[in-house]
């Protein structure tokens, strides 16, 4: 039972960083959703704001780490000209070609939406701090951007998992 270097990087990219972003989303969404003055106690606000600031900042960093490792470490192996590269194997089989022509082509581009939006959300959460609780329009906009960031990451993650199943990077 062992992993090659390429498999290890794939695990770090997808099951480590990518999964961490997707799993942390629920906590961040709940934090933003319930950050309303009518729900807040002094203790709740004191406990929640630093957690939300740190959580969204970590999610933004993780999102960047995910797309950068995917683009600059794993993607070159995927698209190598060799006949044994995952891209070559998928395109050589008409029943699997769409995993590249649709799946990978969308995944590799839409993934960048996630860290860009996650960074904006983290910045605004940190900028407003406790005052975010009395800025309902800003909070709702952040929730929308957060959901879009999650959706983009989910598209990338789901296609990544299926593509790696159809043609593993080994």
């Amino acid at each position, binding site marked *: 039972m062992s992993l090659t270097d390429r498999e290890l990087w794939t695990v770090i990219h997808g099951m480590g960083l990518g999964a961490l972003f997707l799993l942390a989303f629920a906590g961040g969404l709940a934090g933003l959703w319930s950050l309303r003055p009518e729900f807040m106690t002094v203790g709740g606000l004191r406990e929640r704001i630093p957690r939300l600031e740190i959580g969204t900042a970590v999610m933004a960093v993780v999102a960047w780490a995910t797309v950068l490792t995917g683009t600059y470490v794993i993607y070159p192996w995927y698209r190598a000209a060799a006949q044994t590269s995952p891209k070559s194997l998928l395109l050589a089989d008409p029943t699997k070609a769409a995993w590249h022509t649709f799946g990978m082509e969308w995944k590799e*581009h839409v993934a960048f939406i996630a860290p860009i939006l996650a960074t904006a959300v983290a910045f605004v959460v940190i900028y407003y701090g406790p005052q975010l609780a009395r800025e309902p329009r800003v909070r709702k906009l952040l929730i929308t951007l957060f959901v879009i960031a999650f959706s983009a990451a989910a598209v990338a993650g789901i296609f990544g998992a299926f593509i790696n199943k159809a043609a593993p990077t080994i």
Partner: protein
Amino acid sequence: MTQIVERTRLAVTVPAYWDGLYAPTKPSGPAAAAILAAGIGCFVMGLVTSIAAGVSGFSNAIAFVNPVGPLSGKSDIAIATYLVAWLVLYLVWRKKDINIGRVGTATLILVALGILGTFPTFFDVFVG
């Protein structure tokens, strides 16, 4: 004794959060700058993806990192535009109150167009 210490600690730390909550509202400019810049970054990602699909010369020219190919240029251009837009908007809006509703609408339209531009069924229309 422990309760007294705890009450004292809360009395010192908790008001800081209430002060933060009820402090004079911060100008919305810096937040609006970050949000709109993100929309611009997403839009540019979709735009360069669609242009690269239709113009092979452009696609080849933006292969900044050879093993990564054109994706390196698309992402670099989108990220650079995003950061420059954020910096410029921040400098212009940092002390202003900007209508966050309008910025939000503009951002969501830009993000939607950006996602559309990255969608293969859409950008394949431009493939020569």
